[in-house]
């Protein structure tokens, strides 16, 4: 019972922060709402007995990626820019976003109904760092290494793009 109350509150907070992200006019506020959303996600992971995922969510998304976002927004002064009401070439984005959102929501609802209202597997799943490491390096080695290679390629690309020509 308490689980349901806690998860319900967290879900409401998560939706509210996502709405805040979408509706803020100021880029810094939007970024901060996204951070709040990540933090709420991390708390949900803790409630679901997955502290490893929670901590990774905090340190990777809230602690590293969003700090860089805010750094760039501050550096460029981008929070003061007001976008044109309908920027050319992007007018199809809003209907597309609505369609994809409806699709995602219906998939979630379908899964929920197919499971008979049981939202998540709250029974004990071993989510310790050891278990996740064993999974990654035993059952998912190939995708794991492909992701590593992709990230390396992105890093090399970033270095090449920012190198000064002498």
């Amino acid at each position, binding site marked *: 019972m308490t689980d349901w109350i806690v998860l319900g509150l967290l879900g409401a907070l998560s939706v509210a922060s996502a709405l805040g992200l979408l509706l803020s006019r100021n880029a*810094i506020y939007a970024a901060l709402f996204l951070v709040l959303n990540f933090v709420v996600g991390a708390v949900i992971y803790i409630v679901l007995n997955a502290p490893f995922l929670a901590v990774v969510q*905090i*340190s990777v998304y809230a*602690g590293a990626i969003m*700090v860089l976002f*805010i750094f760039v927004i*501050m*550096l460029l002064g981008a929070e003061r820019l007001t976008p044109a009401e309908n920027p050319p070439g992007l007018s199809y984005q809003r209907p597309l976003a609505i369609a994809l959102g409806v699709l995602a929501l219906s998939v979630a609802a379908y899964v929920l109904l197919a499971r008979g209202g049981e939202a998540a597997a709250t029974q004990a799943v071993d989510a310790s760092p050891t278990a996740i490491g064993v999974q990654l390096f035993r059952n998912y080695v190939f995708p794991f290494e492909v992701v590593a290679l992709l990230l390396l390629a992105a890093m090399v690309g970033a270095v090449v793009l920012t190198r000064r020509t002498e």
Partner: protein
Amino acid sequence: MPVLLEVSLKSAALLFVLLTGFAYLSLLERKFIARLQARIGPNRAGPFGLLQPAADGLKLIFKESVTPKGVDKPIYFLAPALVAVPALMLFAVIPIGKGETFQLASRLNVGALYVVGMMSLAVYGVALAGWASNNKYAVLGGLRAAAQMIAYELGMGLSVAAVVLMASSASLADIVAAQYPEQYGGILGWFLFRQPVAAAIFVVAAFAEVARAPFDLVEAEQELTAGFMTEYGGMKFALFFMGEYVKMIAVSALFTTFFLGGWSGPFVNELPILSVVYFTAKVVVCLLAFIWVRATLPRVRYDRLMDMGWKVLFPVALANVLVTAVLVAMGVPGYRL
């Protein structure tokens, strides 16, 4: 429900100790630096100046609360709290002494990762304070802080990773236990001696994370007046001040836990309260080192600071993790429990 009560009481006690500790740390710093500079330091308020922190606090409370024009109010008022809170939250996983009485969540199996995460959240307060103040010096200070902390977080995270490999556990309670294997007598088991490179990297990164001399570019007075704190006064300034000192205590406590054997010491089995004394003594030694360095070294130049973070500290930390991992996997004596 008793668990909830126990945890709340422990947290409240910890907060009380940290907040008075911070006040007296500021007095200790002023006294110690004064001695290093052949002065006497504050000695008017109470015997040996012991009431000086109270006097400072009262003065700050009675300051007029000024809100400059053009600030972004919600974030301007939120930022000081965002500096202090992550620093306080770090203490949730640090084992202060032997036994459950002196520990909160030190058995958390991802404790070391939690530490790294909380450290990285501390950037927000500083960067946002700079942005919300509507002041060029403050923005520059905030940007410097963000860049500096991102650069040095990596080195710190990797030095902690080497410690986690040695202890083969990310829980801080296990890391303390791993520093006392059978084959080592006493302090030779400390990771300070078995992981000296990681310890050195952690120390340098800690100075940069706390943004204290010689890495206090964030608030370099000669260039930026006071950086991100320029537009803050009274109790709002005091919160930043508190955040800095609590962070200083936190990284000292972390260094003690990761490299100086944590709470352990002779006779802790007979008298568990001794473990708290040992822990506190080790933390105070680290804090004195922090203050000593501030009185000794001049501030480094900003480009050199960034060069060192990215081109020296980060590669060395990566290589250290690689070597440690290989040695642990090979089961070399001293690297394998």
